[in-house]
């Protein structure tokens, strides 16, 4: 955000020509992109297309968060991890892809679980966060961490996929936040994850690509966004639509009038669920 701003080189004009010629992008938009930074939380089904399309579009710097290694069952949907990457850290595999697509991009790796102890500091280093996570707790965490930034709210592009379904929305500036939409966490037993319910890889592609489109618009400085709406995709029935969401709730504990939440809380405790999709329920005695 206060990094030295660079201009486009001649080869970059050729390279990004197909988006430079869009009136909404142009040279100013592309220069915004090459000088921007994005934090991708989760290098799984949603993170893969987000990473690929933002790297290809010329985003200048990436932060990648994931504490997992590539497993055989991931390749069915996590299409930047190859068979030969089995056992490799997901962040390393993802970083290689970024460098292969865009050798001038910077990549910062966070091979960890993002939580209340580190989220504010990690998020603060980036212009935008893309939520590609697989659990409820981290979604509340990212929502709060983006909102509670000293220098102002950081945009959060949120996506989710399960079975044949996808949902995408954007939280930024004066819009509602995740807590406005979900004042209370769902009951743990009502939450299904991809391990239990399954997921179609290409559905993750739809969701991640829409997330990348939204991130790109914000980073390029384009006014339009999904903010205030949500895209719902049903891959089985081939139906899709954009729905309108509520505005900011005055009684929201985070962004409402009283601003009751002033610092990060224990989200695993709050949700009664773990911050990954492996060991779901906790015994909160």
């Amino acid at each position, binding site marked *: 955000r206060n990094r030295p701003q660079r201009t486009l080189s001649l080869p970059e004009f050729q390279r990004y020509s197909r988006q430079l010629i869009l009136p909404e992008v142009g040279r100013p938009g592309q220069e915004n992109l090459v000088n921007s930074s994005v934090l991708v939380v*989760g290098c*799984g*089904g*949603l*993170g893969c297309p987000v990473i690929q399309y933002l790297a290809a579009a010329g985003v200048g710097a990436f932060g990648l968060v994931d504490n997992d290694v590539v497993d055989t069952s991931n390749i069915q949907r996590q299409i930047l991890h190859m068979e030969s990457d089995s056992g490799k850290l997901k962040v390393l595999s993802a970083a290689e892809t970024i460098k292969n697509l865009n050798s001038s991009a910077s990549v910062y790796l966070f091979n960890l679980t993002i939580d209340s102890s580190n989220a504010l500091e990690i998020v603060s280093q980036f212009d935008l966060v893309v*939520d*590609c*996570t*697989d*659990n*409820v707790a981290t*979604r509340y965490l990212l929502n709060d961490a983006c909102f509670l930034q000293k220098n102002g709210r950081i945009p959060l592009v949120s*996506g*989710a*996929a*399960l*079975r044949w*379904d*996808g*949902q995408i929305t954007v939280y930024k500036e004066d819009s509602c936040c995740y807590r406005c*939409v*979900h*004042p*209370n*966490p*769902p*009951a743990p037993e*009502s*939450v*299904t*994850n*991809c391990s239990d*319910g399954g*997921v179609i890889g290409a559905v*993750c592609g739809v969701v991640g690509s829409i997330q990348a489109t939204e991130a790109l618009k914000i980073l390029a400085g384009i006014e339009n966004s999904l903010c205030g709406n949500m895209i*719902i995709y*049903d891959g089985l*029935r081939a139906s899709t*639509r*954009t*729905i*309108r*969401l*509520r505005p900011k*709730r005055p009684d929201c504990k985070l962004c409402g009038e009283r601003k009751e939440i002033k610092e990060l809380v224990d989200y695993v405790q709050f949700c009664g669920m773990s911050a990954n*999709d492996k060991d779901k329920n906790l015994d909160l005695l």
Partner: protein
Amino acid sequence: MEVTLEFCGGAETAHNRGEKFLTFKSENKEPKVSDIFAQVRRKKLIDDIDALIESDKDVKPGVLVLINDADWELFNEAEYQVCKNDRITFVSTLHGG
């Protein structure tokens, strides 16, 4: 009046193991959403109603209610006066990635 409920985002599993739509006649001539919820519960029109509806005026956390593709909160939630051809949709919020 005929009422159509729609289920998506996984809410389909609450009714007939994957049914997308449920259509029935409203007992009231001019029902509010709360009247619809009450009727659905009393007549057991949704198989697993407890997955979606908490009370006549509220839904379970993680469930959104749409009226013609807009959040019911924009229309005063359960107090909304249902009109002819309105589509009421239950959306389960997804969390996977």
